[in-house]
């Protein structure tokens, strides 16, 4: 399931809902990405502003999930991704992967996060006490995603 959240969400509740909906999974791996307190410009972050392309963004995420389902034996995937204005400490993204066994769940969750960083259609702007900066994927993000092509 893919959810674009316009307001703050509770990752713990998202995980509980995922567990309740997928009782047969032998392994569940979850990841929570949060808003850092320090901006890339070195200043103190005030707001992380995230925008998306309704409909098209959801499909870009679905393509990532489909790729994971093709590659690993997994039973279910849940992704919650925030848009709008976020404060430091708030959850940006929640990923949960359920599978019969742990290795597939661990690897697929890692894969999904790597591709969310480089392929999912979101645009991020940091607003810090030093100014405003649009955030591009970092070189390391592309390297992380390229690991799966080996």
């Amino acid at each position: 399931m893919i959810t674009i959240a316009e307001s703050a969400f509770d990752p713990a509740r998202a995980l509980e809902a995922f567990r309740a909906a997928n009782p047969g999974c032998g392994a569940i791996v979850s990841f929570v990405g949060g808003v850092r307190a320090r901006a890339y410009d070195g200043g103190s972050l005030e707001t992380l502003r995230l925008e998306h392309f309704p409909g098209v963004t959801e499909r870009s995420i679905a393509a990532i999930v489909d790729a994971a389902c093709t590659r690993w034996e997994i039973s279910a995937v849940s992704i919650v991704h925030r848009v709008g204005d976020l404060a430091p400490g708030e959850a940006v993204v929640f990923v949960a992967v359920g599978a019969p066994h742990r290795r597939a769940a661990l690897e697929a969750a890692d894969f999904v996060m790597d591709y969310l960083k480089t392929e999912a259609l979101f645009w991020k702007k940091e607003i810090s006490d030093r100014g405003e900066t649009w955030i591009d994927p970092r070189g390391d993000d592309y390297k992380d995603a390229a690991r799966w092509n080996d």
Partner: protein
Amino acid sequence: MARLLFFGRLADRAGGRRRERSLGDDVLSVADLIAALAAEDAALGDALRDISVKYVVNETVVGVDYPIGDDDEIAFLPPASGG
């Protein structure tokens, strides 16, 4: 009227996230549209021609030669980053 959508830094460059525009007889492709926009704002034209920008017409990624008309939605997408 065609609907133009600008995302991320391109919205800042365009001075807004969306605008409507009559394409007329001269604008037949995405490339023509970029040329018309560049004639009015050279910096915006340069930004839209950047190799990292994706063009999406009616929610499908297309090439710069893709044909467009006044019933279409044309979106300009800079590099994206989620998570």
